[in-house]
């Protein structure tokens, strides 16, 4: 058996000339061994010998030996490519530089896209995990949000066997905490069910998996928080105090830091049991984020259809109680209670609902950047093609001689392809170096923390090899076929085809380049103006010179004296105590109705904020009708100030003196009635992406924060005096502050990031295109040197010559503008439609984009042309 296999193997690889006698020898050894040591040994020995006979000198004719000539040719091709690159250093520089820059851009984009697509995929069974989200509509109020009722998670697990596990989190907030009387500002705190660790496989470093958050006053923290709070000490069982709530929490577990590519980055998980409402059986209030893990055999669609039954089962009774009509009637009259699932994988890129735990990414940008990356690379490839075909005349003689000496066309194609691939290889090496140089800036702009995205674990390097070859072939294939098609007789006789035939193809390629450039320029102009429009839009309140003192409530009884002391400083204009600060992302939502309302259909969902007398003055709110709260009117405690939107929604033409009340949750509940004493101008209290919602201000003590309005140019002084006063009165609590304008600027971080990325990419694309155009212009001018000389001798002016040289490029830019404008218009209006407040698309943007490109093109071509047109004609004509 083994012997037969050995024979086969030997015949397979051994050179036929040697087969007979060596096989004979092997047979002879076999016979001898069979006699001496038995069959088993002989068989084995035979096979071992066959293996050992696998020697280079004994192998049959193979692919390597047959192709060795080609390997020699590749070596030769590389040498020729190197020499031709060295001979034209300027063009080599343009080609390599352009290609390297565009590859850097592409690599960075690829890194970005890959990271965006990898969100949440690192959890075990991540494809079975879903988040429940709600779409609710009552009267004119629409809620499209990630929050769900408190009992949802438990009900899902209990009623549906498909649900393997369910769990809730609530909030993502920061708080002042203390450990052994040392204070820390702790970010990313959430309340969580114990079961959340069953759904998300977050590695547990310390603690008992079964008993992490199953008792009141327990907390799980992540590794870096443990290091921050306790250093070398053992954190298990230690106590963390939540300031302002007077709660002491015991650490029951340490988990690994949550990876950056996750849609939440909690650092501290407080037990849900500490919330009074954790076990509330109320279905009409949505405050909890519910995650579930389905068993592998259940599909999302199949499970989603169950929600209708769930709503029927649990909502009917409570809806009847709250609004006095049955669930069916309520739904029939246009109200909507709709729950659905979103797969965990889709949350980061596809979910943009109200109350997201963190600002998510957007698949729109992933697509957009991929397209731009592709364009930039395309532009660089086109440059390469253009340069190669334009300079064909230089290589034409070489091609002619090679052909006469017997080169086949295939070999010439190979030669030029080798050159292109060598170019692309060098450019890739340069590009990779540039990528690593740019990585810190990239991380800063994109707010990521990638270390070694190319060669690290699950890096991009396998794609690099493939794309290096692909770019080389893409850029080289067309020139290779053009160059190798020359007829040797013509070329050698001097009838050089000066790349003229390919001139129209070159024009098309240039048009593609310019189309992409114009598109990008228009795009970045629009992105830029939209975002600065948002940032500079009239906010409706004054955000400058306002100092926000956090945790003012911790001062307790000293707070009022702190406020009064501050007011004694001449630089401070007013001080208001309220934790409701615009841009702080605080929401407090409840339905209100007019006093005379008869049905719940008239309810208006209202943001109601608790403020004090000085609120309007401090934040510069504008009162359009009536007045703000005033200490002289004791009845103001039952008064409210509404914004214009709210007044409109209540349907009051003359709202002053009219009354509103919160909607009763059931018929028995008694509610107080409020009188409208003033109307304020709408102000933007949350993200500019959304409309201003109805809002009312109420005179209620709320001691969370303090805003201090001060005079211009006194920032430093005010900060110093506040801190001094604080340390006098706080008894060691840290002074935490913020400036309102900075808080507001931070709320645009995401938009600013996009703006920066887009501008950088646009500049890169234009740079690469300009490099190519520069090379092309240099070549064309060189070609027309004599023509220019003769024209000049015959009396043409410099202006006329310049016009001659500019004409072609100008026409090409115009054609490109015609192509680019509609595409840009389409994409821009699509993008702008996502904003509640958007700029109008005026023709100026498009004209500016096209003109900008034209000017850049002129400047690029201009240098070469001016040089040629002003040169002494004799220099151009003398050379033969």
């Amino acid at each position, binding site marked *: 058996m083994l012997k037969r296999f050995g024979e086969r193997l030997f015949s397979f690889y051994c050179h036929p000339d040697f087969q007979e006698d060596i096989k004979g020898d092997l047979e002879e050894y076999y016979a001898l061994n069979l006699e001496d040591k038995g069959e088993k040994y002989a068989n084995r020995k035979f096979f071992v010998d066959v293996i050992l006979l696998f020697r280079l*000198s004994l192998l049959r004719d193979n692919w390597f030996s047959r192709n060795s000539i080609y390997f020699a040719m590749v070596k030769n091709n590389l040498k020729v490519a190197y020499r031709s690159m060295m001979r034209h250093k300027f063009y080599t520089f343009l080609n390599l530089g352009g290609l390297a820059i565009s590859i850097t851009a592409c690599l960075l984009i690829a890194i970005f896209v890959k990271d965006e697509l990898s969100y949440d995929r690192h959890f075990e069974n991540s494809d079975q995990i879903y988040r429940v989200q709600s779409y609710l509509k009552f009267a004119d109020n629409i809620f499209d949000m990630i929050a769900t009722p408190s009992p949802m998670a438990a009900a899902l697990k209990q009623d549906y066997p498909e649900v393997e596990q369910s769990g809730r989190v609530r909030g993502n907030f920061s708080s002042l905490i203390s450990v052994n009387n040392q204070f820390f500002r702790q970010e990313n705190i959430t309340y969580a069910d114990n079961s959340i660790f069953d759904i998300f496989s977050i590695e547990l470093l310390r603690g008992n998996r079964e008993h992490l958050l199953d008792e009141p006053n327990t907390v799980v923290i992540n590794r870096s928080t443990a290091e921050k709070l306790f250093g070398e000490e053992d954190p298990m069982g230690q106590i963390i105090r939540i300031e302002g709530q007077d709660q002491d929490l015991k650490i029951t577990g340490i988990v690994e830091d949550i990876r950056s590519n996750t849609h939440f980055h909690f650092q501290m998980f407080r037990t849900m049991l500490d919330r009074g409402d954790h076990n509330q059986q109320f279905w009409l209030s949505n405050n909890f984020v519910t995650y579930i893990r389905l068993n592998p055999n259940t599909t999302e669609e199949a499970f989603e259809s169950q929600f209708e039954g769930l709503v029927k089962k649990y909502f009917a009774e409570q809806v009847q109680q709250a609004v006095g009509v049955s669930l069916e009637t309520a739904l029939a009259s246009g109200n909507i209670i709709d729950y659905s699932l979103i797969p965990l994988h889709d949350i980061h890129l596809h979910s943009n609902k109200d109350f997201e735990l963190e600002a998510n990414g957007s698949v729109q940008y992933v697509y957009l950047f991929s397209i731009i990356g592709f364009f930039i690379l395309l532009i660089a490839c086109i440059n390469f093609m253009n340069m190669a075909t334009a300079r064909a005349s230089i290589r034409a003689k070489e091609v002619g001689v090679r052909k006469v000496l017997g080169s086949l066309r295939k070999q010439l194609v190979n030669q030029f392809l080798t050159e292109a691939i060598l170019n692309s290889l060098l450019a890739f090496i340069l590009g990779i170096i540039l990528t690593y140089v740019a990585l810190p800036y990239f991380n800063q702009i994109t707010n990521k923390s990638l270390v070694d995205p190319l060669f690290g674990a699950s890096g991009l390097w396998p794609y690099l090899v493939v794309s290096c070859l692909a770019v080389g072939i893409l850029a080289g294939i067309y020139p290779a076929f053009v160059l190798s098609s020359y007829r040797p007789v013509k070329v050698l006789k001097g009838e050089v085809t000066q790349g003229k035939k390919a001139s129209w193809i070159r024009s098309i390629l240039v048009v593609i380049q310019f189309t992409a450039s114009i598109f990008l320029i228009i795009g970045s102009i629009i992105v830029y103006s939209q975002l600065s429009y948002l940032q500079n839009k009239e906010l409706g309140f004054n955000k400058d010179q306002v100092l926000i003192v956090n945790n003012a409530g911790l001062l307790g009884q000293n707070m009022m004296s702190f406020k009064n002391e501050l007011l004694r400083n001449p630089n401070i204009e007013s001080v208001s105590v309220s934790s409701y600060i615009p841009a702080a992302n605080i929401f407090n939502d409840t339905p209100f109705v007019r006093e005379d309302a008869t049905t719940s259909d008239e309810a208006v969902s209202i943001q109601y904020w608790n403020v004090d007398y000085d609120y309007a003055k401090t934040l510069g709110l504008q009162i359009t009708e009536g007045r703000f709260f005033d200490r002289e009117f004791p009845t103001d405690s039952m008064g409210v100030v509404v914004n214009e939107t709210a007044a409109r929604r209540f349907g009051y033409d003359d709202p002053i003196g009219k009354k509103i009340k919160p909607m009763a949750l059931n018929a028995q509940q008694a509610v107080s009635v409020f009188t409208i004493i003033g109307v304020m101008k709408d102000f933007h209290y949350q993200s500019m992406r959304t409309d201003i919602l109805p809002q009312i201000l109420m005179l209620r003590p709320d001691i969370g924060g303090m805003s201090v309005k001060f005079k211009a140019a006194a920032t430093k002084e005010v900060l110093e005096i506040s801190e001094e006063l604080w340390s006098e009165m706080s008894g060691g609590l840290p002074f935490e502050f913020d400036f309102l304008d900075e808080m507001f600027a931070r709320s645009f971080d995401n938009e600013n990031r996009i703006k920066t990325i887009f501008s950088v990419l646009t500049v890169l694309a234009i740079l690469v295109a300009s490099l190519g155009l520069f090379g092309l212009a240099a070549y064309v001018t060189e070609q027309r040197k004599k023509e220019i000389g003769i024209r000049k001798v015959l009396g043409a002016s410099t202006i006329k010559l310049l016009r001659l040289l500019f004409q072609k490029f100008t026409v090409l830019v115009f054609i490109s503008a015609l192509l680019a404008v509609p595409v840009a218009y389409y994409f821009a209006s699509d993008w702008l439609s996502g904003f509640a407040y958007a700029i109008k698309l005026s023709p100026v943007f498009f004209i500016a984009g096209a003109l900008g490109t034209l000017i850049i093109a002129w400047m690029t071509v201009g240098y070469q042309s001016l040089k040629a047109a002003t040169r002494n004609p004799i220099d151009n004509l003398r050379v033969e």
Partner: protein
Amino acid sequence: MKKYQLGEFEEIVLLTVGVLYGNAYGVSIKEEIEKRQKRKVSVGALQSALRRMESKGFLDSEFGESTKMRGGKRKRYFKITALGKKALDYNMQTRLDLWNQIPDVAFEFKLC
């Protein structure tokens, strides 16, 4: 001289082929070397050395008779060519020269 380059194993094989004049084929060469040198010789090493030297021109070969034991396959007999002889001479000479150059004192081993 590169032309006469011989490895140690090659030299032994070449010499053995000479010793076995007229009866030098794979099996006999292997047996002879194993007997004289008391070392194991693998078929692969031997065969590749033989073919290598043949392509260098040190050896010549022709097919001989076949036996039943060989499954009807012919033997390939090797013999040394004139060039092979020169290579052997050259190798031997260079070693001899070196040997002769060693001063007598180098071999005076004393207990010290």
